[in-house]
């Protein structure tokens, strides 16, 4: 696999694993050569530890799943102490996903991570988690708030700063432009869609918080549309995700305008999928005489 340029960085493979779907990279190490993954984006970390939402937190849907984990995580201090050392040993690129409820939160979390001296190459900022009552999501739906959050974070780091966008908006382009204007290096699209389910036997909501995030192949067409809209709206690189389950999906995302992709839900079913698809992508490039898959970026033709 020829490497893929992304801003100032080279990624050995364009296939990363999505936040919340690969833990801290060590859970699968007996099954998967984790260093073969293009990059690991860790589970959202917040300033303070969060115990997450009460069960039930997940439900199965047609070609997808609902989740409402509620950003369960150890908190940034414990993260620096117990997660970073292992992450530092990895030979793949680590991107730390952070979440918060107010600008100060995000900024403080980022500062603590910056001073911890990890080998991580950057941050992905979750402004789009639909499952936390107190906020977070409010950033994701406002271009102005996204812009100011981005510019505050920009001041604190020279590492890769990626804003992760929500599809649950009327115009994702506006939010994307806000993040670009705020100084983001790149954008990830998309986070989950707001969904719901009811257990008809108990007549109770299937997810504790009523609404959960829908992920998986069901949302792929929506994710592709959003990636393409973002591609037309901004000049910075894009990481595409949402429902990727096969190499054809990856090629679609790149043709739509993505530079890199992330695999989320499918990691649960097949922990080694990102390695398998990287091999298949290699074959595809060879069969199609591409020096790099990046050659296809944004090449989808209109009819």
């Amino acid at each position, binding site marked *: 696999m020829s490497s893929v340029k992304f801003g100032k960085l080279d990624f050995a493979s364009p296939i990363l694993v999505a936040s*919340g779907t690969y*833990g801290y990279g060590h859970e699968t190490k*007996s099954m998967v050569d984790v260093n073969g993954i293009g990059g690991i984006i860790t589970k959202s970390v917040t300033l303070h530890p969060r*115990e997450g939402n009460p*069960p039930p*937190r997940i439900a199965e849907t047609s070609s997808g799943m609902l989740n409402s984990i509620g950003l369960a995580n150890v908190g940034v201090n414990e993260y620096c102490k117990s997660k970073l050392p292992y992450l530092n040993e990895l030979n793949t690129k680590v991107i730390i996903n952070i979440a918060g409820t107010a600008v100060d939160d995000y900024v403080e979390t980022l500062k603590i991570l910056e001073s911890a001296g990890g080998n991580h190459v950057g941050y992905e900022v979750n402004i789009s988690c639909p499952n936390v009552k107190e906020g977070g999501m409010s950033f994701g739906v406002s271009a102005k708030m996204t812009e100011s959050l981005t510019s505050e974070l920009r001041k604190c780091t020279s590492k890769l700063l990626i804003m992760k966008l929500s599809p649950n908006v009327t115009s994702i382009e506006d939010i994307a432009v806000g993040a670009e204007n705020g100084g983001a290096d790149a954008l990830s699209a998309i986070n989950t869609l707001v969904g719901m389910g009811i257990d008809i036997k108990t007549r109770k909501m299937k997810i504790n918080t009523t609404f959960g995030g829908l992920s998986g192949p069901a949302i792929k067409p929506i994710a592709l549309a959003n990636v393409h809209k973002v591609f037309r709206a901004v000049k910075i690189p894009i990481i595409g995700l949402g429902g990727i389950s096969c190499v054809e999906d990856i090629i679609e995302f790149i043709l739509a305008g993505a530079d890199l992709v992330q695999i989320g839900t499918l990691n649960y079913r097949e922990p*080694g999928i990102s390695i398998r698809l990287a091999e298949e992508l290699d074959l595809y490039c060879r069969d199609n005489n591409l020096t790099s898959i990046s050659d296809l970026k944004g090449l989808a033709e209109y009819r």
Partner: protein
Amino acid sequence: MIFNELAIVESTEEIASNTFQTFLKSPKIAASIKPGQFINILPSEYWDKMMRRPMSVASQKDEVISIIYKVVGEGTELMQNWSLGDSVDLIGPLGNFWDGYADKLSILIGGGVGIAPILNLHNHLDELGEEKVLIMGARNSSEHFIDHNPENGVYMTTDDGSLGIHGNVLEPLKIALENIDIQNVKVFACGPPAMMEAVRQYSISEGIECDLALETLMACGFGICQGCTVEFEKKQKTTEHSYRNRFGLVCMDGPIFESKEIKSCHL
């Protein structure tokens, strides 16, 4: 050490009404799995659902494990239709395992599809020559495949009285506990939530040590999705995963929990 192994289907048999036992040749998992642990199964190569199907291991011998399952939906229907020689994608061994049976009288309680991990422990105690009682609950006789044999500490119960003791598993449990110092007893149970909750509450009220194997929906089975939570009775001390102090992960911290550790078996 967790493996992602392609197992080979050796045989499938209907052992009770709508209940099947399938033997799978899975050398790595068979060599390392312990009674109480489970595997996570991709029912078919073309499986279009996001979640594998978790199944407790019911027996393990040489390179072969078995699972016992009720056909309740698409996944288990596919399993039942596996052909001899098919290869099946498994992840395992997963979760914790039965423990603390060494110097005690073990009372094993299984109900419904929860019989698999109980049977595996039963086999294990047989091999160790440990003393034990086996109690199996079901709605009616067609769901049972073991003989009611109280003299040898094997009790069947049925809700409709069609086999063994008429009633639920608490009846034989009380019989088994007669004239015994409860300090020397440990209960191991797995079954439908209502049955386990009854056992859990009884064990707490009587002060009996009791471990329960829980079931919940699982997206991954190996600690990543954080979807499979059970609520603890009180906050646990900080562990490697300190954010689990209020909620435990059934796939990693469990599936086996102490009865007094958790709030309820209804997940």
